[in-house]
């Protein structure tokens, strides 16, 4: 297998980029893609958000360039270290290594900071910083976990500096994730994670578009990101009641690799989204046209192209000036959010155990369900059918503050959503009491379903959970013959074959 790995440090942006071009992997990826290409031409290339087209071409180029330098393409990935993704098999820093006069040094003391794959013989060791950066990468020949010592071949004449960084099996987790994603997910979720693969148009609800960095069914508080465990669970269990399948037969290592790839796509999408948002105000086609018009109004000798050139010059000045720092801050903040989601404090954990599921508790839950405080019924309907009054009225888009064209509820992706029909007993985010508690406490992010954690006390949430979990059975008792639970239709008689 031909491999060429080049590592690049770009000083100006204070970040290290590991640029990986793996020919062998490309070929595998291409083969996978070619197979898929049968159903609608899918190129192994990221596409841009549609709304990039509102920008003037110069601004569009900038967005493309930023994405290319920080994320690359599926088959030529750039591993931007700022983003908290487990890219490598393992990574760490060198500890003190004594110089061995005259002899080559082949066993290095290291401190591992991240271990995502078992360290094995034959893996590449890539220099990420220090004096060996840019030199050919050695291969691992041994690893002693207790002594935290890596054996490499060829050995070194001089020890690497203590604190210099390295990666073992560089990029391998993400590459593995990409190959699996192309095989299992891409035809629905799309190459760029835009939820618009070739099969997506046949599905309702639509596959998730990761590019807002938002996920609906997660264990964290309402504004927090989803955790790795949340994504891993979605992949393993699927989303009941939707076309998102369960991938239970994937090995744990494969599941984790896909999770990293999905997170990486989400981060890329978020960077793109925010970049376009930031440039949209001043450098959309519309804004530039009006700037040109007003400049020509105040100075009638100015030609249209000269006025436009001035605006483009402003853009370039901004991009080489203030923008650099803004971008740095924004992306650092974004990365920080993903890191924070992994901290235990981000999890929504009830302070109180579930209150016993008694008729009194359910009755109280029902009262709250109908009350003005929780207002569940305004969306989910009095009997839980998902037909509350809000589904009939025209809502405001929280992002633009404008009315939607059609009545009903919409999610942040602009897709219509119905409040869940609670009589069917199908819960997309899981059916444990804890899952329902979290849905109510933190809301469902990206959807109109609000967070009730501050409005309702723990006991009240549990009462509602007890009530909601009983709705399918209550509904069935009321209308004999109508089924509930996994079965969509009523349970028919057991067939007897003679």
């Amino acid at each position: 297998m031909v491999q060429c790995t080049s590592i690049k440090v770009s000083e100006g942006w204070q970040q290290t980029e590991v640029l990986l071009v793996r020919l062998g992997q490309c070929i595998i990826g291409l083969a996978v893609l070619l197979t898929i290409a049968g159903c609608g031409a899918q190129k192994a290339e990221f596409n841009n958000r549609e709304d990039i087209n509102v920008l003037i071409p110069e601004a569009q180029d900038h967005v493309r360039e930023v994405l290319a330098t920080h994320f690359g393409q599926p088959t030529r990935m750039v591993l931007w270290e700022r983003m908290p993704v487990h890219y490598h098999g393992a990574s760490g820093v060198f500890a003190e290594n004594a110089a061995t006069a005259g002899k080559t040094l082949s066993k290095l003391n290291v401190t591992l900071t991240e271990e995502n794959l078992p360290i094995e013989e034959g893996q590449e060791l890539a220099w990420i910083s220090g004096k060996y950066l840019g030199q050919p990468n050695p291969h691992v020949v041994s690893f002693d976990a207790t002594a935290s010592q890596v054996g490499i071949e060829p050995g070194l004449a001089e020890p690497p500096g203590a604190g210099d960084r390295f990666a073992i099996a560089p990029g391998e987790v993400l590459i593995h994730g990409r190959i699996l994603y192309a095989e299992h997910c891409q035809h629905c979720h799309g190459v760029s994670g835009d939820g618009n693969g070739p099969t997506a148009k046949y599905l309702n609800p639509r596959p998730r578009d990761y590019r807002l960095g938002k996920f609906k069914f997660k264990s964290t508080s309402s504004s927090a990101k989803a955790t790795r465990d949340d994504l891993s669970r979605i992949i393993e269990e699927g989303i009941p009641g939707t076309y998102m399948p369960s991938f239970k037969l994937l090995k744990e290592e494969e599941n984790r690799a896909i999770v990293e790839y999905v997170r990486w796509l989400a981060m890329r999408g978020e960077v793109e989204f925010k970049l376009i948002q930031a440039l949209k105000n001043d450098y959309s086609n519309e804004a530039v046209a009006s700037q040109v018009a007003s400049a020509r109004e105040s100075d009638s000798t100015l030609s249209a192209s000269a006025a436009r050139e001035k605006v483009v010059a402003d853009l370039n000045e901004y991009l080489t000036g203030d923008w650099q720092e803004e971008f740095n801050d924004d992306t650092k903040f974004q990365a920080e959010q993903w890191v924070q989601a992994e901290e235990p404090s981000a999890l929504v954990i009830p302070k109180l155990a579930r209150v016993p599921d008694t008729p009194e508790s359910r009755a109280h839950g029902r009262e709250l369900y109908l009350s003005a405080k929780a207002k569940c019924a305004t969306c989910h309907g009095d009997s839980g059918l998902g037909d509350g009054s809000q589904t009939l009225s025209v809502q405001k888009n929280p992002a633009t503050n404008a009315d939607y064209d059609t009545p009903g509820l919409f999610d942040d992706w602009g897709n219509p959503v119905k409040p869940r029909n609670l009589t069917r007993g199908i819960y997309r985010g899981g059916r444990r009491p804890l899952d329902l508690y979290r849905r109510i406490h933190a809301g469902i992010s990206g959807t109109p379903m609000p967070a009730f954690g501050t409005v309702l006390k723990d006991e009240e949430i549990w009462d509602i959970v007890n009530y909601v979990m009983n709705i399918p059975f209550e509904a069935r008792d009321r209308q004999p013959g109508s089924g509930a639970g996994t079965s969509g239709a009523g349970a028919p008689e057991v067939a007897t074959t003679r």
Partner: protein
Amino acid sequence: MVWPIAAVVLCWLAPGWNWWFPAGPSGTGAAMSPLGERIDDLFYMILIITTVTFVGTQIGLGYVLFTGARRSDQPEDAEGEKAWFSHGSHNLEVVWSIVPAAVLLFIALYQMEVWAEYRVQDAFPKQVIRTGPLAEVTARQFEWRIRYPGVDAEGNPLELKPDPQPTDLYTVNDLRLPSSQPVMIWLRSEDVQHSFFLPELRVKQDAVPGLVIPVWFEAIKSTEYSMLCAELCGWGHYKMKSRLVATPEDEWRVWLQELQVEQNYDGVSDESNDE
């Protein structure tokens, strides 16, 4: 002559190259259930009958061609070596009607017991009639959703009801049942027609919308088997690959109890739920 020899050699070698039943947990492709073994016996019996018939007729055909080719085409030699004109021979017609009919009748009668045990409820093993179904498997585009009865306070599985109950437990693409005993499931479909296929156990049964079909089987070994959909049910048909995990009954009960604890988890009362 090359082709028949190549065919025989290939047939001989094929199982060694795994060109046979999927090796499965037995490693040899042998059925992993008692009924499956009997189904295999039927299969081999039919294979032998058809092989003998096929090889026999080919030899007969070869003989006729061979002897025909040896005859001289000189008209003067033809005398006394005229072809035997058999068309319309009553005796021959009777023979080759009755012999295959007898063979088919034999097969039809011989397999009846196995078929009855596999499909006819009255002939199901007494045990599965007594214990009833242990799980309901619902096929859905494109996965298997499985419903188990909950467990009571002593940790014994409850009875599975046709309608979902608050105590029911659920998994996806992960059917777990006791091994070394006949077990029954209910099979349903939520949308289109699917087919429940356990290749190593030789079980294949269509899942038909609107019907609840009882299916029984017995896994002789505690291990993981493949569970597939064998009816092209849509573009995601291939995604319905899942697993059957057969474990000794006590382990299965423990697993069900753990599933119960897991499914009632409220994030707090970790210990209070444990048995």
